[in-house]
């Protein structure tokens, strides 16, 4: 009898264990928003630029496309992207550089072994694959193919235009100025907004304004090359863009602008030396002795344009056994070269000032004595007054974005706060991965130090989804950030 009972129990037992515990499916829904037609308007960040280039891979992993695919689960429709020709994933193919100069198309940056000026080899970003010694293979990337106009297949749901500023969106003729939009525009005079509006979107994502201040920043604060859009113009243009996008009752989500201090392009190269020895310090002090004395002489002269305070702030001293701030050119200093041509506008970098991640700058610092025996040119250095201008602009833009979003009942993703969190010491932990804004090793940024990595874009896509969910009582599924690939080394 007992044996019989056991014979009953065992199959039941095995049957039970075959059934893993199950949960009901999570109730995902679109809440009060209609996602049937989704359009994204923005710049390289919404287009999907990574590592200094737009590729088919980047477009597939763009914020716009990631969100669009998630929206499909809650009623979203097709999301058409102007995919760059070429095979996705094929290194160097299907790639368009963010800045096309002289009609050249350059592959995206690769992570590879790079030998620097001091003959030290380490992992770093490079345009050419390791071992490749020939010229840039322009022929492999004919502009006619990659930049051919594809408006006939439009309208496109991803209207992220690499390089676009807010003030470009409503500018007729922008298609001729920017080949990224030139590909998509139906006519030379069509504006980005006109092109985007052809979708009759029910829901939009707008992330614009970064380039209205970033161009100035990446050029080390150059008003001539890339003026900062004034806050008044930003305010007017932002309202104008939203007037268009919401015209037919569409709802949407916007995002504000991150501070430059959250972006590795501005935080990677330190503004000071490694610890130097006493002999080097003495040598440098001897070399700058004449400059320091010259400043005092100018101050002492009658009717001097130079105050003692400025003279003192410009004096250059190095101390052995510690790190020392680099010597930099600061165009905002009082120009006294007419009094003494040797007294150029230089000083040592101050805490909080930044150097940009320009190609070649590290080599110049390492091997050409930039920052020590020679001042670093001003276009590599963001000084305090430039930083103030940048921060003031970002603050003003963000105030506009917030008030416009609130006034129009739109969702807003606080990208500035999120990137500050990323830039903090602890970074952001997602599924066991610690993300920071550290260049390459932080995992969140691509090799250009400005644009996010694939995982970085996935994080931001989730942040947009969270903002939409909160505003429209929706429950759009997020993506599993850890399932997106990390950067691989190219050999």
């Amino acid at each position: 009898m007992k044996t019989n009972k056991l014979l009953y129990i065992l199959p039941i037992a095995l049957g039970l264990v075959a059934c893993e515990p199950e949960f009901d499916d999570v109730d995902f829904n679109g809440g009060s928003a209609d996602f049937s037609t989704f359009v994204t308007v923005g710049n390289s960040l919404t287009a999907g630029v990574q590592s200094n280039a737009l590729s088919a891979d980047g477009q597939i992993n763009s914020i716009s496309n990631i969100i669009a695919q998630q929206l499909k689960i809650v009623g979203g429709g097709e999301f058409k992207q102007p995919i760059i020709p070429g095979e996705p994933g094929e290194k160097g193919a299907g790639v368009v550089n963010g800045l096309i100069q002289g009609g050249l198309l350059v592959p995206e940056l690769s992570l590879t072994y790079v030998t620097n000026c001091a003959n030290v080899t380490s992992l770093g970003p490079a345009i050419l694959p390791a071992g490749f010694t020939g010229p840039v293979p322009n022929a492999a990337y004919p502009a006619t193919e990659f930049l051919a106009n594809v408006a006939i297949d439009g309208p496109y749901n991803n209207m992220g235009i690499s390089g676009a500023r807010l003030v470009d969106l409503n500018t007729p003729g922008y298609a001729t100025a920017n080949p990224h939009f030139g590909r998509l525009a139906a006519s030379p005079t069509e504006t980005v907004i006109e092109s985007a509006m052809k979708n009759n979107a029910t829901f939009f994502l707008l992330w614009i304004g970064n380039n209205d201040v970033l161009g100035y920043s990446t050029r080390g604060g150059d008003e001539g090359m890339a003026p900062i859009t004034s806050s008044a113009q930003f305010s007017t243009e932002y309202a104008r863009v939203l007037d268009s996008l919401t015209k037919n009752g569409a709802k949407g989500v916007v995002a504000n602008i991150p501070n430059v201090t959250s972006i590795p392009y501005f935080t990677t190269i330190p503004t000071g030396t490694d610890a130097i020895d006493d002999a080097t310090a003495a040598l440098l002090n001897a070399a700058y002795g004449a400059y320091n004395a010259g400043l005092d002489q100018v101050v002492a002269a009658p009717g001097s344009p130079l105050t003692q305070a400025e003279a003192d702030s410009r004096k250059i001293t190095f101390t052995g056994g510690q790190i020392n701030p680099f010597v930099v050119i600061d165009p905002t200093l009082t120009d006294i070269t007419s009094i003494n041509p040797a007294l150029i506008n230089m000083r040592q970098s101050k805490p909080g000032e930044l150097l940009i991640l320009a190609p070649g700058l590290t080599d110049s610092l390492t091997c050409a004595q930039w920052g020590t025996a020679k001042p670093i040119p001003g276009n590599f250095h963001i000084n305090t007054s430039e930083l103030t201008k940048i921060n003031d602009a970002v603050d003003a833009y963000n105030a506009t974005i917030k008030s416009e979003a609130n006034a129009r009942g739109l969702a807003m993703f606080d990208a500035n706060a999120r990137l500050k969190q990323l830039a903090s010491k602890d970074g952001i932990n997602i599924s066991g991965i610690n993300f920071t804004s550290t260049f390459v090793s932080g995992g969140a940024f691509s090799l250009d130090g400005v644009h996010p990595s694939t995982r970085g874009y996935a994080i931001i896509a989730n942040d947009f989804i969270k903002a939409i969910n909160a505003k429209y009582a929706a429950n759009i599924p997020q993506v599993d950030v850890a399932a997106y690939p990390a950067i691989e080394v190219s050999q």
Partner: protein
Amino acid sequence: MTVMGLIPMLALAGGYQVNLQGNKQTGMGHLGTSFYLGASSTYFNPAMMGLDSNKFSFEVGGSAILGSVTYQNQETGISESTDNPVGTPFYFYGTYKINEKLAAGIGVYTPFGNSVKWGDDWSGKNLIQDISLRAIYIQPTLSYNINDKISLGAGMTYVLGSFEINRAVPAPIGNNNSSNLQGSETGIGFNAGIYLQPTEKLSIGLTYRSQVDIELEDGDIDFTVDPALQAAFPDGKFAATLPLPATTTLGIAYQASEKLLLSVEGSFVGWSTYESLDFDFETNTSSLEDSKNPRNYEDAIIVRVGGQYMVNDAFALRAGFYYDQSPVTDEFFNPETPNSDNLGFTAGLSYNINDNFGIDASFLYIAGLERESEYQPSGFGGKYKGTVIIPGIGLNYKF
């Protein structure tokens, strides 16, 4: 050590405690602190070893743990389940009644263990891919009957512990980086018990099993990483300490009739000792700092009720129920030990073939209550739910 390779287990009770130390007791809610059921009292309450009327008493047995835990991410909708190997905890007890007062015994059993296999590529792979934790206790014990009403027992425990963990390395470069940590070490502890029989029908037992720390000095860590990362993640040795917490149990049994025995027990498990699982790597690099993994467990209780009905002299039926509180908080819930408050439903039977030889069988169904928790230090959370069934069988022999 080869024996240990055969007994992976699933976290059954709170944390990684495994309460399956006797099929008779398991059948009635794993109760057995306050009434004598054979040589297994070496574990359940060593004070009772001298209560046997036989000179020698032996028990041997084991269980098959068939269980699975399912995880569901509430934000992505992803749902994944463990594919755990079948756990096979076992026990062996032998007691020798030296005289009417004194008895000696030895027990070999497996009160802690954990075997969870989520897979190499599941969404929490950076926290854990799979873990196998094993502890075998060897416990020589003496008991002394002070009089008819009071007995005492105590012994030492010698513990063989080992574990192996596989988890992905979330490095920023490369997509197939993983680590394997393993090691084995011994530990020492003790246990003690008191048995009281104030009346013929009422008995009381109180036991204490001390904490045992498995202090691993020379574990091996082996990285499989992208060639570019090999210098940053060197293979080598590590040290770590895993505590096996103290348990205090108070039980009361009442002989309701000649055939029916009822009992209730409460246990207090000192899980708050498990604050952090730290790996101290012999070789550190800027990418490989010592790994601090807060656990912040809280002390937990287990409440058990159960009964035994003697159908006749040869045949016993048992049933029981217990509530087993999880020591894991909602902020530090790591899928490596996916443990929720458990409800255990048990049934069992014994059949004595003759005066010397008997068979014990038990069946345990554990329903893990659904919980929604996160391991905040890693930013990984969701809903978890587990189900386990455990058939067990044992033999007893006495003369």
